């Protein structure tokens, strides 16, 4: 290697070093510790001993319905939420594009600003606001629908409530991305269609949708991964896991096992499984792109 290339590659390496050090210490080590602990019994509340227990934790996972239940809830939640967000997001974006002509640049900016709010709102604020909305006695939702539903105390309703809150919060993700995608569809296609006499519906089906399909799917996959792995805050505040365990999503289960019951060994096993699932999706995602 010439000395120039050697020097270049050294610079590149140096640039990455601080970051890599951080990653190795605070991401790499925890990962391995997780795997290590998952094969041990470690309950800090009782004793600081870490005793080897082989596959006990994993056997517990597979046998106990708690984990299976949580997995089921999380998957169900992901599917329902993302589907709702994808469709509502699309329609809102489509609608926005249609009426874009009627606004000035600033007017349109103002309109889209409104949609940013749910997305950047702290999850705790969101949780708290919706918690009050869903309150059976003085919550607005019950009073507006004129019913007396026990939103947070009924298993199915509780599940619905976290779906609603999450859809409210993250639909803007779809709205903004799809909006950009829709705007970039070349207008000549629309004009040509109109000359050929296409109706609005046909326009939608044959021009709009195909051009947006790829973007839509990619966004949905991203969102699904995030929904599956990062749903925690809202559930913690709204239902704390459920009535019973009706809304105990996986991240919440891991957290509770770890920091409420202090069963670190079990929690590590849960963590390892969660990471394996994420890896599975992550690699699938990366493969499809490259």
């Amino acid at each position, binding site marked *: 290697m010439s000395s120039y290339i050697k020097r*270049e*590659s050294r*610079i*590149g*390496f140096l*640039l*990455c070093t*601080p*970051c*890599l050090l*951080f*990653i190795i210490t*605070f*991401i790499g*080590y*925890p*990962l391995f510790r*997780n795997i290590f*602990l998952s094969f041990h019994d470690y309950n*800090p509340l009782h004793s600081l001993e870490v005793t080897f227990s082989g596959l006990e934790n994993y056997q517990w996972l597979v046998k106990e319905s708690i984990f299976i239940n949580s997995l089921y809830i999380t998957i169900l939640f992901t599917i329902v939420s993302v589907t709702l967000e994808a469709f509502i997001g699309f329609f809102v974006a489509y609608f926005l594009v249609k009426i874009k002509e009627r606004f000035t640049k600033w007017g349109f900016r103002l309109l889209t*600003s409104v*949609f*940013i*709010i749910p997305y*950047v*709102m*702290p999850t*705790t*604020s969101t*949780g*708290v*606001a919706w918690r*009050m*909305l869903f309150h059976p006695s*003085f919550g607005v939702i019950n*009073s507006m629908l004129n019913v007396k539903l026990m939103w947070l105390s009924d298993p199915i309703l509780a599940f619905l409530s976290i779906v609603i809150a999450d859809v409210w919060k993250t639909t803007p*993700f779809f709205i*903004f*991305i799809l909006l*950009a995608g829709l705007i970039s569809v070349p207008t000549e296609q629309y004009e040509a269609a109109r000359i050929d006499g296409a109706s609005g519906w046909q326009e939608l089906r044959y021009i709009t949708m195909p051009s947006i399909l790829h*973007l839509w799917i990619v*966004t949905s996959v991203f969102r699904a*991964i995030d929904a*599956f*792995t990062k749903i*925690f805050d809202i559930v913690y*505040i709204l239902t704390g896991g459920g009535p019973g365990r009706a809304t105990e999503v996986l*991240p919440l289960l*891991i*957290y509770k096992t*770890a*920091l409420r019951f202090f069963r*670190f060994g079990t929690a*590590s096993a849960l*963590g390892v499984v*969660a990471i394996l699932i*994420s*890896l599975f999706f992550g690699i699938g*995602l*990366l493969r499809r792109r490259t």
Partner: protein
Amino acid sequence: MTLFPVLWMISSSLKQDKEIYKIHPTWIPEKFTIEHYRELFSQFNFGRHLPNSAIIALSGTVLSVTLGILASYGFSRYSFPGSRVLLFIVILVRVFTPAAFVVPLYDMMSWLGLIDSLLSIIIGVTILNLPIVIWIMKVFFDEFPNEIIDAAKVDGLSSLGVLTHIVIPLAAPAVATVVLFSLIAGWNDFLFSLAFSQTEKSMPATVALANMDTGYKVYWGAMMAGGTFILFPIMIIAFLLQKHFIQGLIKGAIK
């Protein structure tokens, strides 16, 4: 529809307690009061929690953006043995469940004596942020025209000089986007804050808000006030940097 919960939260925060509990809720408070906002600072110690939130957000941003920009520039512009693998790993972190890290990190922080310290939360937040920073900045650096860099080198700038004097100023929009995302993530953080903070020494407003449900009584008025209060700074920042925000979202999804 979009603003509905937010407006309700604001409206409730201004109502007297009695009015909050009414069976048929009203939108416009009959009697305005700011007592809940006062409660935030007198009873709930927000004067301590809000600065904590701010410190976490700012420090987390500084840390993740610095580490991230250096790293993504390195990955993008220079190839060295193993760079592709490392990049792959970094991106992979984005799809991990943060909760899975809680156990070993808590253990680690405990051993380091960092439980209930702002630093532990800042580290947690950086872990969440780094992949996004690197992802977005790498896209930017990849598309950066070589001619500018070559021209600068011909003019005699060292590689580091190129980075600081040419690339970064031109990267301002991308940097703004990344800074914005990191700030939002840091300010809104809940999982790591909940896990690592125990007293007001390190507890940010997010957790304090959740704690208003004490198990005995739920302080609704203060909760709504707190919720509104926490929302405000982020909302303003997001409004102002809207363009960057949307572009960031898009770049993150498309590439």
